[in-house]
């Protein structure tokens, strides 16, 4: 019999592995929720990925600030943001997730947070891993199997569907700690998934329909909203992405939420006759994101089924931007030769 929590913690075996996973998930849940608070630093530095981003006292303070910025302003580690057609928490996907969490015995406790934050899923995985370790130590293989099935469901039907996009976006934001945290979570999720049987063959499709740029009802606001909803656009457009496009195209983007900034950016690009440049920068961003998805799928075949729907949406967005570029070029040519009304 393997040692229970805290006893003979270094021993090898499935129970010890589950125990270690439980502790790691708990730590990562705490980091995802609170950022690198002093109480977690020592444990976090045991991860080579995180250690590099937390080396030294100043780096820890900077990491804490980066954590707030990236996960508070740039990209939101919440399932609904990625998987809901309107990019919102509390949508159609929230109820099944809540039900699953309830079945794990780890229903969300904090009122108002709902079931969707990343930290909630990680805490649930910590709980399930701990339960698995206990079941193995107690010689209850059926119970161990039950919690493993729940963990697989949580990973395949929920977390792995959006975690890779979160990780890629965090990396694009250029802040070491948030990128390292997302990468470490993804690594552990994959490691955990490997213990749960054959990888998933396919992932459910992403919700939401296409946007028709030739529809007279499609204005800049609609385009901006479409681009800012990850499940529709195939990319989680962060504020720093918008800043980069704004810089590259030489147009202002103003202030506001991401959709407002995007709309401002397109509007000012149009009025400054730099729409071609702005759309060009946007296309480059989308192509870069699509290439990132391809590279990730190639490096991690287990992720490929989860990345495929995102890749399709990214392609669709590229086609949308190309259509807009063509329209802008045609309008510019018409204006130049005087044929515009």
């Amino acid at each position, binding site marked *: 019999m393997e040692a229970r929590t805290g006893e003979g*913690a*270094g021993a090898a075996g499935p129970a010890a592995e589950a125990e*270690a996973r439980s502790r790691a998930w708990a*730590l990562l849940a705490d980091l995802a929720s609170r950022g690198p*608070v002093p109480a977690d630093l020592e444990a976090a530095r045991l*991860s080579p990925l995180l250690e590099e981003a937390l080396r030294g006292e100043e780096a820890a303070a900077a990491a804490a600030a980066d954590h*707030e910025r990236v996960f508070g302003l740039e990209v939101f580690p919440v399932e609904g943001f990625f998987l809901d057609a309107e990019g919102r928490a509390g949508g159609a996907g929230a109820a099944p997730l809540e039900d699953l969490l309830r079945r794990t015995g780890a229903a969300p*406790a904090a009122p108002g947070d709902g079931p969707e934050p990343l930290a909630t899923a990680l805490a649930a995985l910590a709980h399930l891993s701990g339960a698995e370790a206990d079941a193995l130590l107690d010689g209850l293989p059926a119970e161990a199997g039950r919690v493993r099935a729940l963990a697989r469901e949580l990973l395949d039907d929920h977390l792995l569907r959006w975690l890779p996009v979160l990780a890629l976006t965090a990396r694009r934001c250029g802040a070491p700690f948030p990128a390292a945290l997302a990468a470490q979570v993804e*690594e552990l999720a994959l*490691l955990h998934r490997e213990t749960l049987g054959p990888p998933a063959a396919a992932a459910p499709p992403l919700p939401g329909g296409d946007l028709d740029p030739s529809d007279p009802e499609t204005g800049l606001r609609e385009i901006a909203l479409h681009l800012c909803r990850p499940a529709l656009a195939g990319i989680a457009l962060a504020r720093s992405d918008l800043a980069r496009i704004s810089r590259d195209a030489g147009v202002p983007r103003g202030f506001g939420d991401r959709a407002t900034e995007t709309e401002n950016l397109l509007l000012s690009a149009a009025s400054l006759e730099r729409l071609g440049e702005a759309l060009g920068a946007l296309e480059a961003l989308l192509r870069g994101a699509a290439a990132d998805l391809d590279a990730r799928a190639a490096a991690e075949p287990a992720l490929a089924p989860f990345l495929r729907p995102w890749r399709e949406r990214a392609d669709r967005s590229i086609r949308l931007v190309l259509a807009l570029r063509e329209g802008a070029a045609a309008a510019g040519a018409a204006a130049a030769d005087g044929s515009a009304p």
Partner: protein
Amino acid sequence: MADRTSTRGFLARLLGAGGARPILPAAAPGRPQGDPLPLPEYAESGAAPVPLTRVLQADGRLSQYPPPDRWGDWVEYDGKAWPQRVARRYTLVPTICFNCESACGLLAYVDRETLEVRKFEGNPAHPGSRGRNCAKGPATHNQTYDPERILHPLKRAGARGGGKWVRVSWEEALRDIGGRMRESRRRRRDGIVYHVGRPGEDHFANRTVTAWGVDGHNSHTNICSSSARTGYVLWSGSDRPSPDYAHARTTLLVSSHLEAGHYFNPHAQRIIEGKRDGARLVVLDPRLSNTASRADVWLPTWPGSETTVLLAFANHLLETGRYDRGFLRRWVNWEETLATAAEWAEGEEPRAVAAEAARSAAEGGWRFEDFERLLKALYRPFTPERAAAEARVPADRIREAAECVAAAGDRLSAHVWRAAATGNLGGWQVARALFLLNVLTGSVGTRGGTSLHTWNKFVPVPFSSPPAGEAWNELLMPLEWPLSMFEMSFLLPHFLEEGRGTLDVYFTRVYNPVWTNPDGFQWIRALKDESRIGLHVALTPTWSETAWFADYVLPMGHGGERHDLMSQETHSGRWIGFRQPVRRVAMERAGRRVARTRDANPGEVWEESEFWVDLAFAMDPDGSLGVRRWFESPARPGEPITMDEYFGHIFEKSVPGLPEAAAKEGLTPLAYMRKYGAFEVSKDDYSLHERAAAPGKGIEVDGERRAGFTTPSGRLEFMSPTLRAWGWGEQRHCIPWPLESHVHPGRIDAAKGEMLLLPNFRLPTLIHTRSANSKWLYEISHRNPVWIHPSDADRIGARTGDLLRVTTEIGWFVDRAWVTEGIKPGIVAVSHHLGRWRLRDGDGIGAGMSSLVALDAEAERRTLDVLRGGGPWESPDPDTSRIWWEDVGVHQNLTHGVHPDPVSGGHCWHQKARNVERAHPGDRLGDVRVDGRRSMEVYREWLALARPARAHSPDGTRRPHWLPRPLKPAASAYRLPPLPGSPS
């Protein structure tokens, strides 16, 4: 499958670390559970949150502030420690910003443990700024902790300007300077001059100079607002307006200067409120300024055409009958105008109306209808097409703006301060023409209209006031400019060069003429010449180009380090603000006695008010000069007055309503002001000219005595009898009328490559010459490129970033191009609020904010060569090692010839650029050349335009006695001096 060795190792180490499995919450961690972060021992870590004072701003936004009853002991989390929660305990001390003239309220957060000032935020109790600040207010913190600041009194060691200094005690400085003043004062009454740049206080210094018994007040006004003041004072007797923007239907601004610089914060917030309520904003500015970019109608007028444009608006009002007949009849000197019209009116129709009016008058008195006809006849030629042609803007745009003015009715808020007024020869007529629109619409003193600053600025009275002196200092107010507003201060070095006189003791106070004034090389020469300026004392919170040429550099406090009173005309109401040394107040709240403010400020930094008191004792130790007594305590004869005594008396005796408000809180008036920092004396002060006046006071209007205006007639003077009497009797001078600017298109030969150089705009984040001590502000804006239109850039083959050489009438400078459609073709614009320099590393202005230069002011060909631009430097402040910029701007003012307007005396800032071309080989960014011979020639050319009192005084005086001066001498001093050689 990827290798997960790294993560497996992480898991093994995590497990190996031992301990119990973490107890998770039922599920989601959500926000922090418990607080593992250490809190400072002096923080109230367990304190319950305090409900904040919620202020619903007039524009609909909600602001929150610490409630005043908790200001004495306030706990909040340290923003710099974010996202960790570190509580700090403060005492909050209100003070007044010192970084422009608006006098906005600040709230200093003084750490109760360390007495460090951690930050400055807005004071919600301040009626002018209402809790809000622009970037310059919080930047007071930068100034306070500037690693380059001067912390101790310094005395020159080698030659003046040699840059060698020794530290001296305040006592030693006071003894030496006081002794030199005593010696001068015994010999003459014009040997001591106090030259103020940023006043930032309302009377203490003026009272001090008066007490010295000399004619020694010199201001920066005539490089700033002389011309606007002249226009307004000739109309109304008050030298600046007070627009009620918040309630306007139309706000009409000539340029952005005001709202981007001077009264930026209090005025901008009220303009926004007015706009929210539907007001239209019309802006005249050749440059797409921040303000212009928010305008409903932007008129990018050619400089010098503004008066014509404004008179086209006037014509529109007259032709469409949308002027206020009743107001004109009651309040304009129309009878006086008609009575003299035959002598000055030009043109067939006006002359015919004048003649007919005179005939009618002979039969039955002057008729108002004739005045209306005269106005229409005079301004009929000012069509939109004429204005459009001169301004080079579409006529439809002129009509649209004119309609906005007409639609305003009596709610037209209008303002000009610098801009076109100080840019052009005859710029004072811009203010005359602008105020004509207020007069025609009857929007003088109305709600939403334009009041006079004297109605909205509160002036307190000290416990005693020394009498006006009988001296007249010819170096300050020479005979050539009898109407100047005020002293001809920017010509001081030229007067000295001509041998007009000398100075024994010269104080520059927060003033940097070497850098700020035109023809700065002339200033360097004057300051270095000890035979002309015996002793130069620089009172300054920061290093400056001018302080380098001082004998003493005496460190004075910033906004949170001094006692001053301030009030400004920010809106229709009156208030008084109290600037305080915040560390001193914090120490006194903690029960520590502080004898002198310098004991509480950083280093030995002092404040002027206490310095002036001690200097009076040093100058007049035995009281025999009659100076000292004005600075003695009324309660303790023979002893210096304290700040508590001085300001306590004012608050108790001369601020209506303050003692009662204080009593309600169980405070003395002084304690009330120390607590809140400001007091609203009155509000909604409209139409004060209509107040009833006692018999013998004011003027009679429709059979009743009314307060009226402070002009000689008591009315608004459309035709200025003063101008007529003092030699400016032509129509183009004595009524609102365009004068041909020195940069009129007819004087600029575009075919030769000549352009107009527009230098007189500032950036709203800068503080004249003290920006360089504010790292946050300099990070925002630190360079002043040449704005140039793409058509002009194409012509000379320049692109953004290219070096250009701009040649003026006395020299040239090198700056980078910024190609933009935000400036009119034919004009280049360069803000003259950047381009600081230092002569040596390690001394003077910070290396990140200034260029290291080599200077030669002695030769005929004067040079400033940039050796190195800005860059990082080592200091106790780690931020100074993070300077990422090199371009710190170009000091263009050196290449400006002096242009004294013959009427207002103000410097006319616009320059004719004789050439704008790509830089020559070897030219470096910031290089400057000036022809010293040519600089004096330009001075003489403009001097020749003046009409001196000696030739034009109607009554044997130097200057109309009714015109304001900052310190008005006794009437006897106004008598013209005898001609040299004549019997006295």
